[in-house]
């Protein structure tokens, strides 16, 4: 059986005395959109930080593309094709949109590929092209999210890790963002995203994990999870059904 693109094997993490992730297992296959659901403080952001190598597991193993990630620097992870879209977008506020995109491609050489990726971002987000010389901090929330996603795509990732892409966005932008995530996925990029907007996320995801106080309490195909009563009770997104 081929190895998944990303795999967590019994991963534990700690912040000082706090035990955050508790023996967590994830398997993300190439080509999937996988969604990680959970309340605030359940360990979702820690999962993202562990993938990127900002937080190191205290036990267990994270594997990517068939190889363990332990001891691999953040830069090397980005180089190998893991790119993050950070929570709350986190653009560099006093750098231009172009410079922000450049930073996304920080680990890669300038060349024809850089231009191709830039064109791909412009094709996905025509608005970004209009604003290349504007400072990141002066954009609206929706525009910032487009640049943030574009910035991650500039790393030419195999795996896109998105931390709450819908947070703080107007509903109309939320829909756009989820459409674009699907488009990116169809173009061949695997997506692992943390979301609170369970209903929306489960509509575009193939599979999902539910995290609660650092433990995976539920996982499965997105369609099944949407019908699971536990999800309905736990998340406001299912109020209508309840």
């Amino acid at each position, binding site marked *: 059986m081929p190895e998944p693109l990303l795999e967590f094997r019994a991963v534990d993490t700690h912040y000082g*005395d706090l035990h955050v992730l508790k023996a967590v297992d994830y398997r993300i296959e190439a080509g999937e959109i996988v969604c990680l659901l959970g309340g*605030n*403080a*359940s360990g979702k952001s820690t999962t993202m930080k562990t993938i990127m190598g900002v937080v190191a597991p205290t036990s267990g193993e994270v594997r990517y593309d068939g190889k363990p990630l332990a001891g691999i620097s953040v830069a090397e992870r980005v180089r190998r094709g893991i790119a993050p879209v950070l929570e709350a977008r986190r653009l560099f506020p006093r750098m231009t949109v172009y410079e922000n995109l450049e930073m996304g491609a920080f680990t890669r050489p300038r060349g024809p590929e850089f231009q191709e990726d830039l064109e791909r971002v412009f094709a996905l987000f025509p608005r970004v092209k209009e604003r290349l010389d504007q400072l990141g901090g002066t954009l609206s929330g929706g525009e910032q999210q487009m640049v943030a996603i574009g910035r991650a795509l500039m790393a030419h990732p195999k795996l896109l890790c998105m931390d709450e892409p819908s947070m703080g966005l107007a509903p109309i932008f939320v829909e756009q963002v989820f459409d674009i995530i699907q488009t990116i996925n169809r173009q061949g990029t695997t997506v692992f995203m943390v979301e609170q907007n369970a*209903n929306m996320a489960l509509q575009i995801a193939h599979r999902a994990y539910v995290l*609660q*106080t650092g433990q995976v309490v539920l996982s499965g195909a997105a369609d099944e999870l949407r019908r699971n009563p536990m999800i309905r*009770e736990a998340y406001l997104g299912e*109020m209508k059904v309840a």
Partner: protein
Amino acid sequence: MTDLKAPTSDSGLAERAATAPAAAGLSLAGLARAAPLARIPPHLRSRGAALTMLLLAALFPILHPNDADIDAAANALTYASLALGLNIVVGMAGLLDLGYAAFFAIGAYAYGIAASWQVTPLWTGYWEPLQWLGLVARFHQAGGDVVHFQVSFWLMMPVAAIVAAFFGVLFGAPTLRLKGDYLAIVTLGFGEIVPIVVRNTPSLTNGAMGLNGVAAPQLFGWSFGIAATPYYYVGLLLVALLMVTSQRLKISRIGRAWMAIREDEIAAAAMGINRVRMKLLAFATGAAFAGATGTLFVAKLQTATPEMFMFPVSVMILVMVVFGGVGSVWGVVIGAMILQLLQSWLLQDLSGWLNALGRLIHSGWLSRIQLASSIELIFGLILVFMMLYRRDGLIPATRRQRALSLGEQHAQVGSGGIAALKGLGALDDSRDGPLLEIDNLTVRFGGLVALRSVSLAVRAHSVLAVIGPNGSGKSTLFNAVTGLVSTASGQVRFAGADITGRPPHVVLDRGIARTFQNLRLFPNLTVLENVLIGMHARLHTGAAGALLRLPRTRREEEAARERALEILSVFGNRLLPRVDHLVSSLSYANRRRVEIARALASQPKLLLLDEPTAGMNPAETLELAGQIKDLHRLGLTIVLIEHKLDVVTSLAERVIVLDHGERIAEGTPAEVRRDEEVIRAYLGRSAAVA
């Protein structure tokens, strides 16, 4: 640096060796006594041990009558007093002061000018009352009589402390708002300005030449003169007094407020602590310690020059505090003594031995080496090594408690004595209308509108839930009500009174307490201390009460502790076995509980809970929801930010929905669920599809 140590003798070593085992022995004697607070090492709290130390120190000049060594010890005591003062500012209140020596200078020059021939105005009749009091003398001189200041040392010591404290307040009032390192720089600038002003005003201070002929203190007509012994005893008494002062402040309401500010300023304010006043008090207390010490210092030397109070002195005192243990009263005293005696005894001895060795092996370099001159190098190395390898210092101010055994953890988890909590949410029910009213509240961060014309009303004794996606402005709403962010427009009324824009500690005092979504506890304080800090606004002990420890103060403190335990018992057995544990060692769920307990400690009328069950598993969530329900049943009014639907439905009577900083719906939980706009905000397009 400033020291003036003369030659030494080997006999000093015996005394030094004698104190070490004494200190070690004390720890065993004291361990048996349980400390009410975990942070103070039990053995050092023992009064008997302290008295033994004092007695040993008092016997030192008699057992070892060597003037040079006594002189060195007296200087060491001077620095110990300074270290105690800086410890209040840096250690307890967490305000990094790099110009502390300025206050030392102010005290020293205050006495120096008041007891010398430096300033001699012409005699006029106005001076006569002061002459009767013995503060000035009339001195006959060709060309007219002049005034000779001869204020008593004993009077000047408290006066100098007050003068220094006054300058502390004067300088602190505009600057103490600055955050950490900016404050450090500002104090550094102040520390530089004072000696320059001293140097540049020779008419008052004799400038760079220094004050001369400062009178020695007199006691019942006997002058202290130049022998070191009397100064040693004054120094010893001063250190003892300042230690008692520090220790009493530290375990009082005042000390807790300082430590709260050090740990988390925002949370301290939200718990009712007037930050500006408390910081000023710390700054003034520290300055007063330095001012009093300055009088002793200048009386002993009978001279003072600006160079004695420059940046290196401030750094030396800081090194002593860091070396001994930031925040630890015994630590800083012992740290200061060790470093000062290292300089005057050990380095001299060591240099002597190395010189002898150098002569033996014919090494010219070794036979001339003077280690005492490299004391500042050693200070620098100590500072760096302590920071890298032992940031808590010799005697750390906080001790970790052992973790609970499994048995202890699982013993009788129950829902606790919630019925015992009285007076919660007590309101003047004769007043009509909602308890909290928010009218068209708008909050902006730069160009971003975080809240747009939000209005809501909370009925007394009700539970309101605020829901909405992350980033919709829920926490901003709490911050605006509690005065942590400023509002662009709109009004907040509580119990009929306008509280818009009032500072956080005033809002708490009016009766609104809160918790934070990302937890803002005081991590290096114990569970009990956290809860006691929550009580700050309801307790009355001031600095004077803390120092005197009158029966009233003790009763208040005891009652506060009992009440804290009562409040903690709301959570059954979850927190009670851990009252002396540092909060940083608790689980996430327990931290959430401590934060609620801390908020309850202020006896709020209205409790704002920001995602109280975040990070809790379903069982813990259920347990907490039950406890919140009990609190409500006891009369408390509650506003709750929550994501978990079951919690919202089971607790809240009404629900407000925020999206993008706007209120999009309000109603009962059932009504809100059916609201089209809510569904759209949460579900986007899926509402249509599903």
